[in-house]
Structures are given as C-alpha cells and as structure tokens.
C-alpha cells in the first residue's frame, strides 16, 4: 500500500516536471519583443545585423523546431548559452546558487524557528498580552510588502545607523577564514532579516491557529488529567498534533530555496538566483530564464514530493485518501 502511494506520487512529480519543462519554453516567448532587437540601439546594429544575431540565438527557426532543440538539449544536460553574456547557462546559474541557498536557507530557518516559537507560545496563552502583541505584529509583517520592509531596514540600519552594508554578498576584499565568514555574515544580515520577518509571520499565524484547534481536544484534557505539567502537555501532546500544517509549509519553503527572492536580492544587490532572474528578464535572456525556472521548479516539485511522502508516514490516514 505504502509503495503504491510513493510510486503514485513519483509519477505525478514526473508529469509535473514534464509540464514545467514545456511550459517554460513557451512562457518566455509570449513576452512581447525580440531578444536580438535589444541590441539594436546599445550595439548600434542594422536590421541585417540584428537578423544575423537572431540566427546566432537560434530564433530564426520555426518555434516548434526551437522547442524540439530545447527539449533535446535539456535532456542531454545542456541548458544553452546566455544571450546576454555568452556564457553557459549551467555555469551562470551555478555561480549564483550558493549565495541564494545561504540567504534563503538562513532566512527561512530563522523564520521557522521564530515563527513556530511565537505561534506556539501565543496559541497556548491565547488572549495574553504576548499573544495579542505577537499576533498583531505578525499580521502587520505578513501584510507588509517585502520590498518595502527591505527598504526600511536598509534605510535605517545601513543608512541612518550605518551598522550594516547596503548590499552585496561580501565586501570584495581579499579575506579568508573567519574574517571572510564575518564579512559574509554582515552582508547577509539585512536581507536575511527581511526574509525572516516576512516568512516568520506566516509561520506564527499558521502554528498559532493549528494549536488553537487542538488545544481543547479530548486527548489534551486526558494528558492533563494524567497529571502532566502544562509544558509537557504542550510539548508532547498538543504541538506534535498541531504541527502538520506548519510542516507542509516548512518543506515547501525549502523547495523555494533555489528560486531565491527576486525582490530582496534586487534591493540588497545580492548576487543570487533572484537577482539573476531579474537581470535575465530585463535582457530577454530566454536560456537563463528557462534554466532558472527549470531548476527552481525541480526543487519545488521535489520538496512537494518529500512533503507528500513524509506526510504519509507522519499521518497514515493520508495514504488512504
């Protein structure tokens, strides 16, 4: 039964990936305009030269022919060459993966830790000053656009106070060892904080409401009747049963780690996948866009798959659905 469940989920993941692969190709070609035409003014090209450039990009061929070439190349591990830089897409993306994993990984981890703690405490002490403060604070942060929040943090902590750098992954100095780690951490702080504050609020809200649902269940009352302390009742009985919705959110969040955050990375000039996506959109760089979306999609699909499978183990009732 369990094997069939896993196989079914794997099958759906494969179908989703195939759909994403095809969708990626057509999605960017819907955008109005011509990638070769972007060079018209900046490189002072004539119509004839632009046509030649289009041929170099492979855009002179019929759309379906381009599509089959794209599929063939992708399946052979070649994601193409960037229109903008002429460099291989895989190499271009690889150089941006680590900063994004660091930023989104740290930001998401802090958000999870902070959000779950606040949600558990607020939900368990519903109506308390802590609960009200954290709930209103979370709702405010949740509804705040992350771009605006990032700009505020930048203006206050990098601008007025001058505590942190205004952007970048590191200072570019020739540092090594601990000095380099500290340099990277300083540059990471504000973008990661922006991410953590925004995401943390959503974890808080979800965890709190889940806990409220189970808080008055019979099994919780039974645990209390057995003489367990409030801490033990909360930690061993209430929280594990209220955790499933947050668990899904967590696993999916990690699926988005590879996608980066376009807004935050652009505001803080942070050289990750998000910023690469922004630059690729700006330059109609189809191969890079396809590559980024494909890799991000694969990460999300895998995360979703893991969530589904783990969910089945955590709550066997789900497999029967």
């Amino acid at each position, binding site marked *: 039964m369990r094997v069939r469940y896993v196989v079914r989920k794997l099958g759906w993941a494969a179908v989703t990936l195939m759909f994403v692969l095809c969708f990626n190709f057509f999605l960017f070609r819907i955008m109005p305009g011509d990638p070769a035409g972007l060079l018209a003014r900046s490189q002072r090209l004539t119509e004839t030269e632009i046509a030649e450039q289009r041929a170099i990009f492979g855009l002179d061929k019929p759309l379906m022919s381009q599509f089959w070439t794209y599929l063939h190349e992708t399946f052979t591990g070649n994601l193409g060459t960037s229109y903008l830089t*002429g460099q291989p897409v895989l190499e271009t993306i690889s150089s941006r993966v680590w900063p994004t994993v660091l930023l989104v990984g740290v930001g998401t981890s802090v958000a999870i830790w902070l959000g779950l703690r606040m949600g558990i405490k607020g939900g368990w002490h519903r109506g308390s000053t802590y609960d009200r403060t954290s709930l209103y604070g979370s709702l405010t942060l949740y509804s705040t656009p992350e771009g605006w929040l990032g700009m505020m943090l930048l203006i206050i902590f990098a601008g007025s106070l001058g*505590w942190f750098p205004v952007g970048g992954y590191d200072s570019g100095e020739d540092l090594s060892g601990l000095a380099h780690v500290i340099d990277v951490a300083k540059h990471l702080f504000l973008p990661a904080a922006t991410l953590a504050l925004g995401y943390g609020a959503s974890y808080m809200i979800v965890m709190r409401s889940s806990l409220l649902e189970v808080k008055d269940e019979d099994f919780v009352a039974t645990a209390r009747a057995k003489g367990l302390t409030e*801490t033990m009742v909360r930690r061993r009985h209430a929280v594990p049963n209220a955790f499933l919705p947050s668990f899904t959110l967590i696993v999916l969040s990690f699926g988005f780690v590879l996608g980066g955050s376009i807004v935050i990375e652009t505001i803080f*000039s942070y050289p990750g996948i998000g910023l690469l996506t922004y*630059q690729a959109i700006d330059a109609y760089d189809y191969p890079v866009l396809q590559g980024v979306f494909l890799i991000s999609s694969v990460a999300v699909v895998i995360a979703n798959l893991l969530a589904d499978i783990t969910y089945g183990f955590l709550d066997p009732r789900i497999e029967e659905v």
Partner: protein
Amino acid sequence: MNRTARRLLAVAGIGSVLALAVPLSATTSASSAEGTPTVLRVGVPNDLTTANPLSLRSGSDWNVATIQYDMMLQFGNEDLSPQPGLADGCEPNKDMTEWTCTFQKGVLWSDGEPFTAADVAFTYKLIIDQDISTYAQYFSDGTTFETPDDNTLVWKSPTPTSQPLTPPWIYILPEHVWSQYADLEKADLRAVENVPSVTTGPYTLTEVNRGQNWTLTKNPNYWGDEPNFDEIRFQLFTNQDAMAQALKNGDIDVATYFDSALLPSLESDPNITVQRNASDWWLNLAFNFGGQSPDSDPLPALQDKTVRTAIAMAIDKQGIVDKAYDGAAEPGTSFIHEIPQRWHYDVPEADQIPYDPDAANAMLDDAGYARAEDGVRVDPATGDRLALRMPISQETAGALPAGQLIVGYLDQIGVEVKILPVNEGKMYSYWNTGNWDAYIWYWTGEPDPNYQLTTLMSDQCGELSDGCWKNTEYDRLVTQQKDIIDPDQRQAVVHDALALSYAEVPSIALAYPNNIEAYRNDQVTNFTPVPGDTGYLIPNYNNVGMVTVEPVSGSASTGADASTGMSAWGWVAVIGGVGVAAFLFYRRRSRVDDEEG
C-alpha cells in the same frame, strides 16, 4: 523558558548583532596602512555583461574596457579630437588611400610581451574578417594593413578615407593572446572572457564576480604615468537608493549613472561632489514616413512638413527637462548631442522652431487641418483624424514621462496621441515593421558624427533609419563630409546636414539628459573629466581619469576593509559566548523538563 537563560540568550544575540555592526561603522574612517593596497571603490547600477572588448554592451562593459585598453589614437581630454595614444600619429598619402601610422617604442603588454604595430593590424583584421559590425564600419571594403616594421602600420584603402583620424573607437588586442581565438565562430569569439586580461592600459581586469563586483589591478608595465591606486573595484548596486546610501556612508568612493531623482539627496551632503555630465545619449521623437515593411502604415499627414513643424512647435522641451529629468538635462536641438561640441549644431535662434502652441494652431488652421467636433484635427486630403500611435521605450530614462507630457502638449493643437509604453525588444519590433506614427526612443552615437548622420540617410530605410525619411540633399551632404580631413571644413558640412534635418523635422531631439556621477570629496580627488569640465569621471572615452585620480591625503580607501576591524579573537569570543549561552539555556531547560516530567 528559564528567565536567566532567556536573558543570556538575549544578551548574546544582541552582542552578536552589535559585533557584526560595530566594525562596519569604523569602515568610513579606515585609513591607509603601510603596505596595504589602495583601492578605488566605484559603484555602478549596471552589471558587467562581458569583459570582451569585441562585444561591449552595458555602460559597465565600456567603462571597464576603456580603463584597460588603448586605441591606436586616443580621444583628447578636452574635445575628443584624435590625440597620440599607442600611435604618435598617422599621415596620409596624396590621394588619402594610404595612411602611415607610427607607434611609440618600448610599449609592453601587461604580461611583459612587447607591443608592436602587428597587434594593431591583427585587431583590425580580426574585426574585418569576423565582420564585427559595431567596429567594421570604420573600414571600407577591401581595406588592408601592412607592418613594414614593429613601429609602423600602413593602412591601405581602395577609396580615399579619413577614418584613421576619426579615430576608430577600437581597443587594440594582443595578438599573442587573441590569435588562438581568431578562427572561432563569431558567437564563440564574442563569448571569450580573457580574465585576467592582457592590456596596454593602466589597469588589467583580474577578477569578475558577475552580479556582484569586478576588480582591476594596476598594470606594472603601463607606458603612461603611474596610476595612484593599486586596484579599482567596481561594485554593482541594483538599487539606486542603496548606491547613494553607500556613497554617503563612505562604503564607495565614487558612483555613476545615478537617477536624477537622487540629485537633491546627493547634493545635500557636503562630503559629496556631484558631476552632471553631458551624456552620450539623447531622447528622440521620430516620425514615421513608411516603407519599412508591408505592414508599415503611418499617418499620411506626417508627410506634410507643416504638421511635423506644428508638432515640434507645440512641444515644451524645457517642460520635459524640468519634469521628466528634474532639471538634469538640456533641451534638445539638433540630431547630434553635445558630445563632442565640435559636431553638435547649436541652432541659431533665428532658425529655431520655438515653443509656441498658438503659432502651431495657426499653421494647422492655415493648412486646412480643421478641428472636428471632438477637437481633433482632420487631414483635408484623406479625412484621417490627426491621431498618433506613439510607442515609447519605457526603459529609456525620462521617455515615458516625456511622452505623457507630449500627450497634453499636442492636445492643445488638436493632435491626439495614444502612447504605447513598451520594452526595448518591442520597440525594435515597431521599428522593424513600421506600424507606428511617431515614437520616443534614445540615440547614442560616438564622438565621430558619421554614424549618427548616416542613420537619417535614405538608403538606411530598413537598416538604421528610424522612420525612413528620404532627402537627397541631406544624403549628399552626409556623403560629402565623410572624406573631408580638415576638421573645420568637415564641421561646416556636418552642420549644414544637421541644419537641414532640423528644419525638415524628420525627428525631434527632445532632451540631452545629463549623466549624474558623484564622489566623496573627503576620500578621492583629482579626477580628469572627459571631455572637458562637464565630462565623465568614470572613463567612457579614454582612461586618463583613472590615472590622475588619487586618494585624499590621510583618508585613502584601502583594501583593509573594516570588516576585519574587530580581531578574529574578538569574534571567536563573541561566537563562543553565544555558544556557551545556548548550551546553558538548553541544559537548564532539559533539567526543568526532567523535573516537570
């Protein structure tokens, strides 16, 4: 949570944040330490697209290439006229089909190899053989090069030419490095990165972290004066506010390509000096005359010079400068911007088309373009309403607000405008097909006027021409100026061509926007703007400015970033403290849990 543990954690957390934060505050006052390389830190909003001088694209690409490489003859500091560079000069034969250029002796490439005339011949041949269009335009078909000795290049053209004195804006490449790429396909050749680079200029590109920063290091073999900085580090800021803030904080020494909206903030800081350059591009409104493709369908009334002139009269260029560029621009006049001053044609007041909506209305009334009930005029010949479809390049600074202003300006004279804000790629599609009436885009030329003048020639319809305007007299003048060597004689013919195109109104130069640069006057000094006092600080035409710029005494930017301001042991102590606090907290909690359980 135990209260003591909570306090410990809070203290440790705050301590960590402050520890991360405090050293940075010290960055701004970091001073040059003995033996530490001095670094000029430059903020830019454009990423380095390529380090290959054959495929330059973004502003940053040009900046970096200009700092590293030399041309055969270089642009002069004052007016971009040809000056000795790698070559001391070029002399023509009698019929100007053969030019002999002599080069400096003793010049070395950054890797120690000797520079010779063969490197110049190799570069030029590579461009011709690979047909790299941006540069191949300098050479007539059949041009050849000979190098009778290491210091002499003979440029042979089948037709008379003055191109060696343009001078060709081509950066000279080392044959001993680039010959291995000469047989590549053009696309592959243009993707060659060549980092670390081998150059003859004052700096070489030694490191590229695309999307973040790129570093140039002083060339030990540079033939000119020794630069004052050991390194130049460009830092990418995709957020202009952040770039301004970094300059205010002293995290960077100089920055370029600022939005005009940041001018008040920059100018209010006494430690920042703002440079408003006459930039190398301008905002242009082109009319469509049709003929680009079978889909080309411009409004027939635009063939009538009266209509075009009335539209030009109704546009308040000063209003565009004030509102679309916050005053950081000059009202446009003729079809070549103000760099270089020699070729720009300052239209005499008597010949100018003034801003006068009333006179424009009268002109249209007299020509029979009566207003319909909705106030829009009608073409008496065709019955068409004077309604313009106007694509606008929304990525061109100031273009969209200018277009929005023009809707109001032209409404006053009974001309309806439907603006279509689109991206660059879509602008090209409009340009290509010709299904538009007027559009707003930019033009960027080069110091020599030839390319820019060519874009309005009749034979450029479907190639470079915006709207396929055709005028035989204009074509004659542009052809004539190409081979005039005497600058004054050539200037006169160029100005005649520009006066004609201004009067005939195939397009309207709306504004010459400023490029805004700014630097910390307490950290760096002695830039050499090019061209002239209102020129670029960050090199765009020659690399002189990067040789003369120097740190202000006692406050140089250094490689010793204050990120290391706290000793590593200090950091070990802070991180250790956090660890101990966390350990104490969890041990305490475990004990409480055990007791409770």
